[in-house]
């Protein structure tokens, strides 16, 4: 007889607690079929994500290249026509014009970003680059275009541009490998079928006993998301005025004649990129990826110092402006006489080494590819999730342009001097997410970013701007 306390619970526990029964054979076939289907689906998602990432990178790179003010094709052609007309009508001395043209031609050989950029051949080259880039991006058959691009007669690529195409070609090569991988899935399935037809040898295990004391509520693997996630993000960025404790330049401004002091204001920009996340704990996520980001500022009534080459037809490129981000070296513009005409409203001194002011507006654009390493701690992990994000980033300088314009017309291009190629920054953000489905989350995150070291290598320039971005993101979690 059993003791009196033995009751129905024990009866069922003893008989059914360790109950085993071999399931039907077809069940494993079904499971394998579903696992294969999931693998294919997952690979497709990865392929789509990589494709989207590649498209975004292409868009950024293409946009960057096409909007680069130092690009030879950036100054509109009608500007040349206008300037040429002005030249023939207003220039009283034909000989001087010829002499100017000679000096101009000599300069153009020295500086590729000079006025020679407006020759028809180079404009055609620029168009060719654009069309090649577009066709390259549109080509989804992964045929090796690399050789074609390099062999194109009209396409004259600089070393940097060749590197760019090399990188793009490499990326598409990776996508091709990924496609091959997916297509190989069918072969795997056939191999599996063959494998399944053979008997499977089961190795003996020293399996542990069932741990009944562990609670389900504590760890619910069936309900939780996967560890990997990918996020596409986009943000309007508000740049603050950098607190430049240095002087930026040793130039002395001389704006006394027009009584308009030079003034620098920051402009709002946009950033965007892809971030991969890896869940290391229940609430902690580590993230990294790449974000394109830029800093833009404009300076009104900009002053110059130099050989007055901007105004007069004197060889040399020593026009220098001073801004909080450092000195800006400006190249000579298209036509010297036109420049005089354009800046005729400005007051200036005629000494070749004097400072002089203009009514021009100088816009500086400094672009970075940011590679962040971030950690997000989820304060609330529900339908509406809240997370605190912090991290540091490596910012790689990818764009450095300056455009001088007056009354909306571009009259000079150049770049900010002494920009550091790699800058570090820190960022904190409060991420508010709305879980749309198990896999997709929409997030909004105010993110404050501050550059840790000065953007300039010039020790007298301490340019460490801060940025506030309202980051909107779409996160896809892999299960």
């Amino acid at each position, binding site marked *: *007889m*059993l003791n*009196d*306390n*033995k*009751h*129905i*619970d024990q*009866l*069922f*526990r003893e*008989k*059914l*607690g*360790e*109950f*085993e*029964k*071999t*399931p*039907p054979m077809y*069940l*494993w076939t*079904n*499971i*394998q079929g*579903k*696992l294969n289907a*999931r*693998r294919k689906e997952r690979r497709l998602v990865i392929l789509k994500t990589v494709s989207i990432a590649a498209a975004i990178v292409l868009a950024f790179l293409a946009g960057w290249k096409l909007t680069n003010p130092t690009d030879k094709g950036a100054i509109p052609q009608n500007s040349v026509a206008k300037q040429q007309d002005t030249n023939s009508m207003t220039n009283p001395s034909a000989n001087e014009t010829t002499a100017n043209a000679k000096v101009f031609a000599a300069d153009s050989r020295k500086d590729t970003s000079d006025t020679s950029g407006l020759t028809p051949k180079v404009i055609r080259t620029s168009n060719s680059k654009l069309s090649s880039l577009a066709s390259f991006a549109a080509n989804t058959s992964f045929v090796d275009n690399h050789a074609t691009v390099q062999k194109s007669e009209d396409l004259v690529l600089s070393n940097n541009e060749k590197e760019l195409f090399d990188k793009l070609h490499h990326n598409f090569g990776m996508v091709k490998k990924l496609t091959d991988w997916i297509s190989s899935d069918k072969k795997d399935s056939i191999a*599996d079928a063959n*494998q*399944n037809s053979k008997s*499977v040898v*089961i*190795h*003996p*295990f*020293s*399996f*542990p*006993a*069932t*741990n*009944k*004391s*562990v*609670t*389900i*509520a504590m*760890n*619910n*693997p*069936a*309900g*939780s998301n*996967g*560890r990997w996630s990918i996020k596409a993000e986009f943000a309007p960025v508000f740049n603050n005025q950098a607190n430049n404790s240095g002087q930026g330049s040793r130039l002395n401004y001389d704006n006394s004649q027009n009584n308009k002091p030079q003034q620098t204001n920051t402009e709002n920009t946009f950033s965007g990129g892809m971030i991969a996340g890896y869940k290391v704990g229940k609430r902690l996520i580590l993230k990294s990826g790449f974000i394109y980001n830029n800093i833009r500022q404009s300076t009104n009534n900009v002053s110059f110092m130099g050989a007055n080459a901007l105004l007069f037809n004197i060889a040399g490129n020593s026009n220098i402006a001073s801004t909080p981000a450092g000195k800006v070296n400006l190249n000579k513009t298209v036509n010297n006489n036109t420049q005089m005409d354009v800046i005729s409203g400005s007051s200036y001194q005629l000494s070749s080494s004097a400072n002089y002011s203009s009514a021009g507006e100088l816009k500086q654009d400094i672009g970075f590819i940011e590679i962040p390493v971030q950690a997000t701690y989820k304060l609330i992990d529900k339908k509406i999730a809240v997370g605190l994000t912090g991290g540091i980033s490596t910012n790689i300088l990818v764009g450095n342009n300056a455009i001088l314009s007056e009354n909306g017309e571009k009259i000079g291009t150049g770049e900010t001097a002494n920009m550091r190629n790699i800058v570090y920054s820190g960022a904190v953000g409060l991420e508010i997410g709305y879980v749309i489905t198990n896999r997709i989350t929409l997030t909004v995150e105010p993110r404050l970013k501050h550059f840790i070291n000065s953007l300039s290598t010039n020790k007298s320039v301490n340019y460490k701007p801060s940025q506030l971005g309202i980051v909107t993101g779409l996160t896809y979690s892999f*299960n």
Partner: protein
Amino acid sequence: MTNLEETIQKCALGDRKAQTILYNHFAPKMYGVCLRYSKDTSEAEDNLQDGFIRVFTKIGQFEFKGSFEGWMRRIMVNTSLEKFRKSNHLYPVEDMIAFEGVQYSEETLSAISADDLMKIIQQLPPRYRMVFNLYAIEGYSHQEIAKLMKITEGTSKSNLSRARVILQKKVIDDFGLQKNTVTTTLC
């Protein structure tokens, strides 16, 4: 143990041979779990299938801190509970009848097979079956069950009592056992 760890790691990498080995070893035990939480073999097979797909897709998250079999079992139980929640069963249940404790002889116990008891437990109304399994066999507290099933602790206790009553009655009816009055009750 090393073999198991290696197999789990290979499964995490998607190794199909390792998956087959793991399935063949654990499937009978997990099928037993699923049968207890299901109304019939068809439902149990569905749960086992879904459970193993979850095991293989989430096996990379297993941190080798506890029993792997326990981890797998929890996945099977959770899969069964989710299926139950989705189907939102509203079964009429029998009124609780007054009963007193029952004791069984050794002969009686040996006469009742596990298969017979499985049939009885599968005939329970779904919610009673869930609560009884979780409490009496898995060893969860009413607090844990309430959290898992999104019910109150009182409901969990009530469901357990009713499940016990029904099971008692079935065992007595099916096996023609004599009911003996004892001092303790089953509640």
